[in-house]
């Protein structure tokens, strides 16, 4: 359903994405992992259209979307949860969910969406999406805004970033639920083992390239197998 063909992205002389080729299949739950600076977030942003690749093509459901804007891609069915949830003065959680669903949903329906991310909905629906909410609350609202759209491809950029352990535990449940019930494709960028555990496939990135794609055991074997250089150092 999504194909990235030979994507390159370079800034200030540094190759952030180096000839990326990737195919995502329908209904699968993918997790991209890898060290900081390996290009994970950039790759996700390139799929959403937040960043434009220098070269390469993006094919979504058979259509070339490389030149399409963020909103055009959203309308085609791509959703994106930002790593740093965006705040708005004067826009309530209810307003945001109405925008996300693109219709006049009732407060009751908005509450149902919020309940799915573990928020006691009535307390939140009329709150403004601003700094009065905690990092964990903002994060869950951000995730709810993507789930509300029911996209064909939902991308979550480091859902665990900036939230406390307790909130994260609840979030893992949310992703488990998505993995078990959603017929759509999910792509999560994460370092967390709990999220890696529920992946159908893990994509391991390093230095702007994809090192390995596979199930958890295969990828972990790849990560933890002794490196040549270590051997050389230890035998000296």
């Amino acid at each position, binding site marked *: 359903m999504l194909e990235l063909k030979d994507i390159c992205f370079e800034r200030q002389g540094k190759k952030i994405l180096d000839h990326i080729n990737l195919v995502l299949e329908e209904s699968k739950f993918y997790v991209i992992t890898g060290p900081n600076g390996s290009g994970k977030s950039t790759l996700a942003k390139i799929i959403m259209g937040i960043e434009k690749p220098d070269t390469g093509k993006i094919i979504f459901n058979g259509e070339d979307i490389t030149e399409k804007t*963020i909103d055009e891609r959203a309308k085609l069915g791509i*959703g994106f949860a930002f790593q740093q949830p965006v705040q*708005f003065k004067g*826009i309530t959680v209810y*307003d945001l969910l109405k925008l*996300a669903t693109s219709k006049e949903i009732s407060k009751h329906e908005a509450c149902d969406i919020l309940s799915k991310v573990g928020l006691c909905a009535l307390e939140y629906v009329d709150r403004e999406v601003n700094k009065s909410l905690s990092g964990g609350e903002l994060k869950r609202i951000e995730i709810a805004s993507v789930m509300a759209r029911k996209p064909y491809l939902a991308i979550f950029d480091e859902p665990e970033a900036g939230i406390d352990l307790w909130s994260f535990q609840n979030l893992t449940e949310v992703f488990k639920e998505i993995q078990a019930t959603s017929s759509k494709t999910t792509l999560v960028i994460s370092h967390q083992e709990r999220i890696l555990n529920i992946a159908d496939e893990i994509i391991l990135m390093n230095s702007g390239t994809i090192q390995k794609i596979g199930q958890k055991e295969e990828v972990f074997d790849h990560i933890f197998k002794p490196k040549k250089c270590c051997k050389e150092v230890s035998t000296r």
Partner: protein
Amino acid sequence: MNKEDKELLSEIIEDDPTKADSYNIRKNGKGIDRKVNPNIDIVPKEENSGIDVYVKEDTLFGTVNIPVIITESGLKDVVYNDFHIGKNANIIIVAGCGITNNGHKDARHDGIHRFYLEEGARVKYIERHCGLGVGDGKKVLNPVTEIYMKKGSYMVMDTTQIKGVDDTNRVTKAALDSDATLVITEKILTSNDQVAKTEFEVELNGENASTHVTSRSVATDDSYQEFISNITGNTKCYAHVECDAIIKGNGKVKAIPEIYAKNIDANLIHEAAIGKIAGEQLMKLMSLGLSEKEAEEVIINGFLK
């Protein structure tokens, strides 16, 4: 009142203003309709120069609508309205001025509103201003609000000027006795080459007096806005002033904050932020399927809500 008058009125007061407990409608410098009740009296001043509104003490709840409409090009209307709010009375006052100027001459309204709140009185004051009309004569509004608050009184002042006013110079002055609280929220949107200046001067004179001033403004095209606040804490008191502005195109905003603590227990805070719409905000809304233009509108409407 003709159909146009009613339309202009609806721009400043959503519901039919004559449905309020009491009202006074002024058109082109003269009072044209008035209603009073046993608790709220409206007495015209001499020579159509304004009204005195008297709210009896212990009035449990009431509303007063005092809209002004101007449809004559070249008219300069100056009005003095005084509000005497009795002890422990609780009242909503809705005011505002709508100008339709289809001519070449300037139309101007200077409304000087003075509020005298007795002990424990509670007032919600809503003010809406707007300008309409296709003439090249300017629509000018210069509201002055003076507020005198006795012990334990409480006032919310909510002012909005969202379209069509070419030139405005707003002055708000207040003096607060002990335990009095004043909450001011002001929203201004300017476009084309409009100019809006707004000045707040609040004296916190009594112990535990407090004020919260929030200004949200959007300056688009070639418009200019100036925000001046001057808060003085003379005793143990609290003040929070917040000035937030979005600039678009060649819009310019100047914020001049002044907070002056004259007592060791005065706690005064000022926050000001001016900038264009954040790129992430646009991107977030676009990722929900809104075009860039739609996203901008949602952000500005929310900001001025």
